[in-house]
């Protein structure tokens, strides 16, 4: 089991008070807080060995390069990649997905080809495909969802028959918490020759994820949702796929040799990493992976299952509260979307803020999903390793107060 109190002691920000009350941070699906181990790793880089990577022959550059590449190795091991060469550092999940679309997609998709997405995708897994669709004349299909927020399997089977060239989907929905059966879907998709792209922004931080087990071809992850700094993310890609792809950005670092009229690309993964990278972010990400590995991802998942189960039960008892998504914690992660009576989600977020509680409100960058749910917005509470049942109680009490204030 995971020792929440010990974990909380590692997060300096959790000592903050908001308007005299202790901070109750329930917005980790948006971005997680950072433990002192991550903050210290970044501080150490700047105070002890700050230098550019892969360039200098001096001691500092050598140390920075070792730390930088060590983070890549850590992450490769963390998600079960065969080799670190399959990991490209990017800014975030959005950039990782854009890289897939504009390198792999642009080279491999043409007019009339279908790409299969789902109704619960984040905008970052819709808009880049739409941009390519406009450019290439490809067609986007969407797997339907049921009212409980799970993907409709018949809809998937029906659309897969259209032989899409790619299946790109969220492993865990940021708005509904739904865990999609990616492994089963990847198997079906591969049977028709589709390439499988997984948006793992909401899964890799919260549960054991193994790219070989999932049999996905690409996977996109953000560091900042898993205890690391903002501005660092990872694209995992199968070696043979990455090897055949063209870079989308040119510049330093990504080249082997440059002449006046032509150049040769660097080896994987640096071929896709033009310019000086986010060194502090990468080192922070390495420390975050170490931190999560020490806790154990099975323990993280179990802790979140427990707290989600408790929260769903307590929230269901709040009069007038509507929960979105499945109640089955085996099929969902720790982000819970809800609305309370006719209180707009933004009003709810503002009221909770006066109690020191941070939640997210709005369309969660998933407007097609909001249209499907027929709501303009939802409030979302999301949990992570440092959240407690007591915080769920504080949330429920504040919601009861809001209910009284709005006379629901």
């Amino acid at each position, binding site marked *: 089991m995971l020792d929440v109190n010990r974990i909380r002691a590692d997060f300096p920000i959790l000592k903050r008070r908001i308007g005299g009350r202790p901070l109750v941070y329930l917005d980790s699906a948006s971005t997680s807080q950072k433990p002192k181990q991550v903050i210290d790793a970044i501080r150490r880089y700047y105070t002890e060995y700050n230098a550019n990577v892969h360039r200098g022959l001096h001691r500092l550059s050598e140390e920075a390069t070792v730390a930088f590449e060590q983070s890549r190795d850590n992450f490769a091991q963390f998600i079960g990649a065969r080799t670190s060469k399959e990991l490209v550092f990017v800014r975030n999940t959005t950039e990782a997905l854009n890289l897939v679309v504009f390198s792999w997609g642009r080279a491999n998709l043409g007019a009339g080809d279908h790409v299969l997405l789902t109704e619960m995708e984040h905008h970052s897994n819709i808009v880049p495909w739409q941009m390519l669709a406009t450019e290439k004349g490809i067609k986007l299909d969407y797997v339907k969802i049921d009212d409980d927020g799970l993907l409709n399997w018949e809809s998937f089977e029906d659309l897969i028959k259209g032989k899409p060239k790619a299946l790109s989907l969220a492993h865990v929905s940021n708005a509904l918490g739904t865990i999609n059966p990616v492994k089963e879907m990847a198997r079906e998709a591969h049977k028709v020759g589709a390439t499988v792209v997984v948006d793992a922004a909401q899964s890799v931080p919260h549960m054991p994820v193994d790219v070989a087990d999932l049999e996905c071809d690409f996977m996109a992850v953000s560091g900042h949702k898993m205890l690391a700094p903002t501005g660092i993310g990872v694209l995992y890609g199968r070696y043979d796929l990455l090897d055949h792809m063209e870079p989308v950005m040119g510049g330093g670092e990504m080249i082997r040799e440059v002449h006046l009229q032509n150049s040769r690309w660097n080896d994987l993964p640096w071929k896709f990493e033009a310019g000086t990278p986010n060194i502090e972010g990468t080192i922070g990400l390495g420390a975050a992976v170490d931190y999560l590995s020490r806790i154990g991802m099975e323990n993280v998942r179990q802790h979140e299952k427990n707290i989600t189960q408790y929260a769903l039960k307590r929230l269901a008892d709040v009069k007038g509260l509507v929960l979105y998504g499945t109640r089955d914690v085996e099929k969902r992660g720790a982000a819970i979307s809800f609305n309370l009576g006719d209180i707009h989600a*933004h009003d709810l977020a*503002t009221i909770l803020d*006066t*109690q020191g509680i941070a939640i997210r409100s709005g*369309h969660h960058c998933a407007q097609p999903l909001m249209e499907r749910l027929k709501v*303009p917005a939802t409030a979302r509470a999301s949990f992570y390793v440092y959240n407690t049942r007591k915080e769920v109680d504080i949330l429920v009490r504040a919601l009861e107060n809001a209910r009284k*204030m709005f006379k629901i």
Partner: protein
Amino acid sequence: MSTGVYKETILDHYRHPRNYGDVPNANAQARKENVLCGDVIEMQLKLDGTRIDAVGFSGEGCAISMASASILTEFSKGRTILEIEKLGKKDVIRLLGSDPGPARIECALLGLEVLKAAIDTRNGPQEKARSDWTAGKR
């Protein structure tokens, strides 16, 4: 428990919006959306020269945007367009009776933005471009 920005006036206007609905024979109207929240407000005006004879609004959104629009319609009825054009953030906060703070001020100002945009359409659609530009600059 502190009610923060949600004073009784705001909740009352949210629950019972004034001047809600279309205005018969309206000769000016506008509709705007707060892209961040998805709040939508539409206003219709019946202008007699430079005086606002009738005003109605419709839309959906949070309590702050809806109450603010409702309060503005009450305020603007019978006033001149010059009086409305002079209104700014401080006036909206005064009319609301509380300051929603930087994160939510856009919600409170949406009604005024739509009202001003509606006034700008009184001479026909050629004025619309200007109102869009003004809105974009805020």
